[in-house]
């Protein structure tokens, strides 16, 4: 992997020399095509003439545009926001430089909105951790043109790793929370619904802020769950009757409020939500509960909990930055809590029907099959990164890699599902690779676990087979690659009527089928191919 860095100052101590190529200082003459990604990391130069400096900053915008127009738009292009590290004002009303910096940053963030391959990184998130004296080391600046203190290089690398992780869409899915002394001060069973510390003055105020912040996390697609040793009726009463309660029943996708040990409860929650233990972060004020979960469920992430309520807000920021930050939230993420709850309602409905078919018919399912485009591509890449259970080959792709395959003549479709309980959004994808003039290979086929159990996987693949059949494709080949998590798909292609041609040493299976007839789809799916 090679990254090409545009810079106007020395940034080598920050990014290092592994897989990085640097432009000359403020040199945009080279726009190499044979690299894997680009970074634009300019800093505001040191110049006491503010009018001149503002003009220079204004020129960065045009330079950036020029480079961006020549860069390979299949490769990620990351733009750092400009930060003025030496904000010098000879008069208090001299805002020319401030405005120039704001203009550049607004322009860069708009570019990121308009172009899927462009990402904007807020560099002040790093620089604001330091005061002006530790941020800039003038001795080293004057010796090496490096405005950022090289002593901060290690810190920068830690931060940058977290940002990159966010850009690559790898984050935890679920936050499991304890209640007493975690979401509020005090013990509900002893202090009562109105006696717990929540709202009002400190420390209740601290817990209110913390709860409000967690609500926002839920709105941004993180699944919240409760695991608490309490009487459930007490908690339900607190949710209903305590006027300061911000985080209520509707924000939680699952809860285990009982006297069973937390290890069993967390396992149960993971099973109910259909997520892996490794996508869970567990928050509890009790060191012994944390230790137990750490020992028994090493896959679960267990951060230390702050000793004092006033440390909750910095703790929240840390949680977000370490585990839950992604670059952009898709609409599917925002609705996730509702979707997991709608699933619970569907399950209740299921119990009332005599047979599966009449239940499925009652759901009034609508399936849209949509070719990959700029709008759904981030979600498709995200699904290849996150889907583990119903995933036939578990091949992970970045946005750029998906785009590359489309350019290579592959066809990628995604699937979106609605039923009378709600819209699950884009929840499936298939990658079709041209093998031969009459043969197509299924490189990847995956469905989010939220839509499983309704025969949608068969309807989805069946529709694709029919589409290929109509186009005159004669033969389809596919692989199943086993992983620790995708056991439920081991015989999916057999069920779809494909023939297993060979089994490799690692138990992966190779399938083929000739497309000589139309695949029968159940009539209760309303399927549209767009």
């Amino acid at each position: 992997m090679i990254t090409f860095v545009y810079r106007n100052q020395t940034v080598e101590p920050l990014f290092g020399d592994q897989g990085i190529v640097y432009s000359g200082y403020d040199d945009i003459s080279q726009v190499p095509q044979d690299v894997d990604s680009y970074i634009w990391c300019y800093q505001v130069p040191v110049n006491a003439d503010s009018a001149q400096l503002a003009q220079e900053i204004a020129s960065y915008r045009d330079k950036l545009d020029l480079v961006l127009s020549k860069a390979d738009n299949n490769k990620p292009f990351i733009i750092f926001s400009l930060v003025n590290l030496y904000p010098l004002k000879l008069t208090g009303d001299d805002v020319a430089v401030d405005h120039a910096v704001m203009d550049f940053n607004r322009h860069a963030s708009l570019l990121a909105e308009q172009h899927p391959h462009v990402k904007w990184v807020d560099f002040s998130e790093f620089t604001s951790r330091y005061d002006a004296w530790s941020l800039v080391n003038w001795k080293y600046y004057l010796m090496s043109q490096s405005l950022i203190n090289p002593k901060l290089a290690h810190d920068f690398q830690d931060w940058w790793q977290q940002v990159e992780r966010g850009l690559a869409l790898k984050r935890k899915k679920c936050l499991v929370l304890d209640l007493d002394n975690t979401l509020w001060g005090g013990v509900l069973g002893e202090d009562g619904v109105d006696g717990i510390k929540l709202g009002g003055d400190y420390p209740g105020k601290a817990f209110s802020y913390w709860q409000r912040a967690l609500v926002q996390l839920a709105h941004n697609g993180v699944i919240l769950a409760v695991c608490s040793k309490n009487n459930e009726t007490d908690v339900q009463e607190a949710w209903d009757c305590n006027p300061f309660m911000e985080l209520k029943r509707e924000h939680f996708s699952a809860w285990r409020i009982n006297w069973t040990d937390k290890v069993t409860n967390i396992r149960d929650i993971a099973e109910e939500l259909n997520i892996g233990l490794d996508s869970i972060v567990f928050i509890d004020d009790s060191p012994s509960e944390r230790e137990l979960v750490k020992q028994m469920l090493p896959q679960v992430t267990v951060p230390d909990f702050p000793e004092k309520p006033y440390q909750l807000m910095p703790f929240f920021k840390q949680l977000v930055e370490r585990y839950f930050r992604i670059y952009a939230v898709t609409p599917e993420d925002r609705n996730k809590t509702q979707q997991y709850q709608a699933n619970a309602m569907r399950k209740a409905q299921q119990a009332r029907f005599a047979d599966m078919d009449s239940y499925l018919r009652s759901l009034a399912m609508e399936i849209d099959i949509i070719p990959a485009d700029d709008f759904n591509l981030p979600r498709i890449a995200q699904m290849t990164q996150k889907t583990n259970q119903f995933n036939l080959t578990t091949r992970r792709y970045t946005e750029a890699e998906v785009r590359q395959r489309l350019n290579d003549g592959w066809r990628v479709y995604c699937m979106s599902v609605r039923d009378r309980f709600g819209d699950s959004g884009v929840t499936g994808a298939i990658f079709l690779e041209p093998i031969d003039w009459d043969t197509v290979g299924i490189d990847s086929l995956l469905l989010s676990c939220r839509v499983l159990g309704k025969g949608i996987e068969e309807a989805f693949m069946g529709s694709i087979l029919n589409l290929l059949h109509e186009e005159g494709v004669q033969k389809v080949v596919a692989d199943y690659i086993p992983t620790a998590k995708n056991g439920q798909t081991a015989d999916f292609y057999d069920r779809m009527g494909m023939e297993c041609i060979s089994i490799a040493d690692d138990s992966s299976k190779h399938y083929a089928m000739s497309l000589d007839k139309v695949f029968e789809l159940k009539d209760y799916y309303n399927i549209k191919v767009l």
Partner: protein
Amino acid sequence: MNLENQVLEIMREVFGIADITPEVSQKNCERWDSLRHLTMASELEDAFDIELEPEEIAEMTDFARVINMINSKLK
């Protein structure tokens, strides 16, 4: 760890060379470039809690001079 070994360790880390010896100098070591030179200086400042002036950093062109400089600072 004595001072020499500690300095060698820092150089090994900064220059990214496993088999570094006390004979190392800016002349005979390609990876000892001007940027790593500053990184080394900044690491030495931290490790020994000293403050090096730009002129002093410029003089530290081989292992022996580095050691002498640090010794003079520590006195």
